C-alpha cells in the first residue's frame, strides 16, 4: 500500500516539518482553516489531536488546549463531520492523534473505516500497546490503508525498536527525551547519542523527532538526526496569541522555516 505519508517520505526524505494541533482549539470550527493555513505556509504533515479529558502523555499546554476543545464540544463525530470534504481542498498527509478510550467508545473498527473514507493517512494512539495492535487491529489498519505510528524513547531497548519498526508502515515517532509533551529544556534535542544509535539500526521506516521541539534552533538540530521534526505545544501557544489565525500561523511557521533557508 502507499498512502500520502509514504509518498511524502519518498519525495522529501529530510527536513520535514510536521505540526500538531488540538482539534477544537482555540475555537470549535478552526480545524479546517488551521489545516489549510498550515499547508499554505509549507508544512509537510499535520497531526490533528483528538482531545481527551485525561491526556497522560501531555504537558500543561496540550492539556489546557484539550480542555478548551472539550468545553467547545469537540467530539470524534464532530471532527469527522468537519473533515468530511477535506480531500477536496488539500492533499497534505493527515494523521489523527489521540488516546484509546474515546476511539474505543466510538468503536475502533468504525473509526478506522470512517477515517479512511475521509482520507486520513495515519493514526497515533500512544496508549494502544504494540501487542494489542498486532493481535487485534493490525489487519484492520492495513485493510483501511492507515499507517499506525508508534513512539520510541531513549529508553526503548533495541530489540523493541526493531519489533516496532517491523510493525510500522509510515514513520516512527522518536520522542526526544524522557518527558511529556511541551518540555523546553535544551537537553530534549541534543540527545545525539540516542538519535545516532537509532540511525545506526538501519530501520525500514523513517523517523521524525518530537517532544520539546519549539523553535527554529531545536527544529534544525532535530532535522540533522532524522527525517524531520514535530512541533506541538509551541504551535498551540502561538495560536493563543492575539491576532488572526492566519497571522499567528504564518508568523510561527515562518519563524521555524527561515532558519533552513539561512
Amino acid at each position: 500500500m502507499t498512502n500520502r505519508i509514504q509518498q511524502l517520505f519518498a519525495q522529501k526524505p529530510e527536513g520535514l516539518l510536521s505540526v500538531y494541533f488540538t482539534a477544537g482549539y482555540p475555537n470549535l470550527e478552526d480545524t479546517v482553516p488551521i489545516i489549510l493555513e498550515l499547508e499554505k505556509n509549507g508544512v509537510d504533515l499535520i497531526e490533528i489531536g483528538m482531545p481527551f479529558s485525561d491526556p497522560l502523555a501531555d504537558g500543561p499546554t496540550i492539556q489546557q488546549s484539550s480542555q478548551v476543545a472539550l468545553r467547545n464540544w469537540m467530539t470524534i463525530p464532530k471532527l469527522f463531520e468537519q473533515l468530511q470534504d477535506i480531500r477536496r481542498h488539500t492533499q497534505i498527509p493527515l494523521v489523527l492523534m489521540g488516546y484509546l478510550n474515546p476511539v474505543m467508545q466510538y468503536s475502533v473498527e468504525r473509526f478506522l473505516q470512517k477515517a479512511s473514507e475521509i482520507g486520513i493517512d495515519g493514526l497515533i494512539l500512544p496508549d494502544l500497546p504494540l501487542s494489542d495492535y498486532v493481535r487485534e487491529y493490525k489487519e484492520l489498519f492495513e485493510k483501511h490503508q492507515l499507517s499506525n505510528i508508534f513512539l520510541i524513547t531513549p529508553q526503548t531497548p533495541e530489540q523493541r525498536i526493531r519489533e516496532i519498526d517491523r510493525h510500522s508502515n509510515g514513520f516512527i515517532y522518536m520522542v526526544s527525551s524522557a518527558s511529556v509533551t511541551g518540555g523546553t529544556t535544551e537537553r530534549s534535542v541534543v540527545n545525539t547519542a540516542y538519535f545516532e544509535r537509532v540511525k545506526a539500526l538501519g530501520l525500514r521506516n523513517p523517523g521524525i523527532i518530537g517532544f520539546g521541539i519549539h523553535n527554529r534552533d531545536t527544529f534544525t538540530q532535530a532535522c540533522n538526526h532524522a527525517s524531520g521534526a514535530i512541533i506541538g505545544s509551541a504551535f498551540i501557544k502561538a495560536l493563543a496569541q492575539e491576532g488572526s489565525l492566519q497571522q499567528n500561523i504564518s508568523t510561527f511557521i515562518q519563524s521555524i522555516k527561515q532558519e533552513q533557508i539561512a
Partner: protein
Amino acid sequence: MKYQVDDNGFYGRFGGAYVPEMLYPNVEELRQNYLKIMAEPDFQEELQVLLRDYVGRPTPLYFAKRLSEKYKTNIYLKREDLNHTGAHKINNTIGQILLAKRLGKTRIIAETGAGQHGVATATVCALMNLECIVYMGEVDIQRQAPNVARMKMLGATVVPATSGSRTLKDATNEAIRDWINNPEDTYYIIGSVVGPHPYPDMVARFQAVISEEMKAQLQEKTGSENPDYVVACVGGGSNAAGAFYHYLDTPEVKLVAVEAAGLGIDSGESAATSVLGKEGIIHGSRTLLMQTEDGQVTEPYSISAGLDYPGVGPLHAHLHQSGRAIFESITDEEALQAVLELTRLEGIIPALESAHALAAIGRLGAKPDEVVVINLSGRGDKDLSTYLDRFKFDDK
C-alpha cells in the same frame, strides 16, 4: 472460572497495560521483577518483621456482639483501622517501598485522594529515608488539610494537581507524568489495585495479608476458616482485594463489594462505577469506567474522598462481570448512619469509606447462624470534621 490475573496481566477481559511507550520500560521492569523479589526470603523476612512490629499486624478480628444482636447474625470486624497510620493502606506502601529499594530507586512518587495513601507513603519514605513527592488534587488539598499537614510533617513534598477536575484522577495523571519525566531513579507507589499491570496484582498481593489472617482467626473463633460473607467497600478496591483474595476460589464464601452511591445512583452525583460505568481505559487499565458517551472520563462524587474514583480495579470489574462478587451501593446518608451506629454500639468510630461496608449489613439477608466479616478498612479520625458538621452534636 479463574479470578487471579493471567500471564498477560488480564482478569478476564479487564486489566492489561495501556501505557504510552514512555512508560513501557518502567512498567516492564516492574513486571519482570515483582514476583521474583516478593518471593525472596530476605524480602519476606524484612516485610514480615515490619508488618508485625511497625504496622501492628496481625490486626484483630473482633466479634461485634451488639452489632450482631441488632442484625441477628454473627458479625466480625477485621480491624484494619488499628494499623499504623489508621488504615489498610500501609500494608501496600510497606511492601512497595521494600521493592523500590531492591530495584535501586531513590525517589518515590505517589498519588492521593483523601490523603490516606499519601500519609502511608510519606510514612514509609521517612522510615526508609527516601525522597517522597505526593500528588494531590488542589480541591482535595483544601478538603483534607490534616492529612496534608501530616505528609509535610513526615518530610514529603505535596504537589497540587491543578489539571482537569483537580481531584484523585488528576493527581494520578500528574504522578504518571512525573514518572514519564523521571524514568530511571523514580518509583511510583500506586495506592490501589488500579493502573497498568502489574500494579493491580502486586497491590492485591500486598493487601492479601488481610484475608490470610482472617482465615486463621476465623478458624480459631468459629471452627471454620470460611465465613458466609466478606464485605468491603470499593473505590479503586485495594482493601476489598485484600479481604477477598484468599476466598476468590472458594465459591461458598459470598464476596460483597460496596460502592459509594453518593447522593443516589441516578442523582448525577455518584461513584457507583459498577452501575454507572462502561468498559473503558483509565490510568493504563481496561476496566469499568464512568465516562460520557464520547469516552471522556467523568468526575464521580461521594462524601468519602477515598471512594470517589471514576474507575474500579480490573479484578473487581471481572468479579462484577462474572458474578463472583455481589455489588451494592450505599448513599452518603446511609454511610453516615452506619458511622453513628458503629460508634454507639461498639465504641468504634469508622472511616467514611468503611462505613459504606457497614451500611450494607442490613442488605445481606444473613441468617442467625451465618458469619459475616466486615473489613473495617480505616478509622474515622480523618473524617471528624465531616462528622461534627453533619451530626451537629451541640444541638442534641
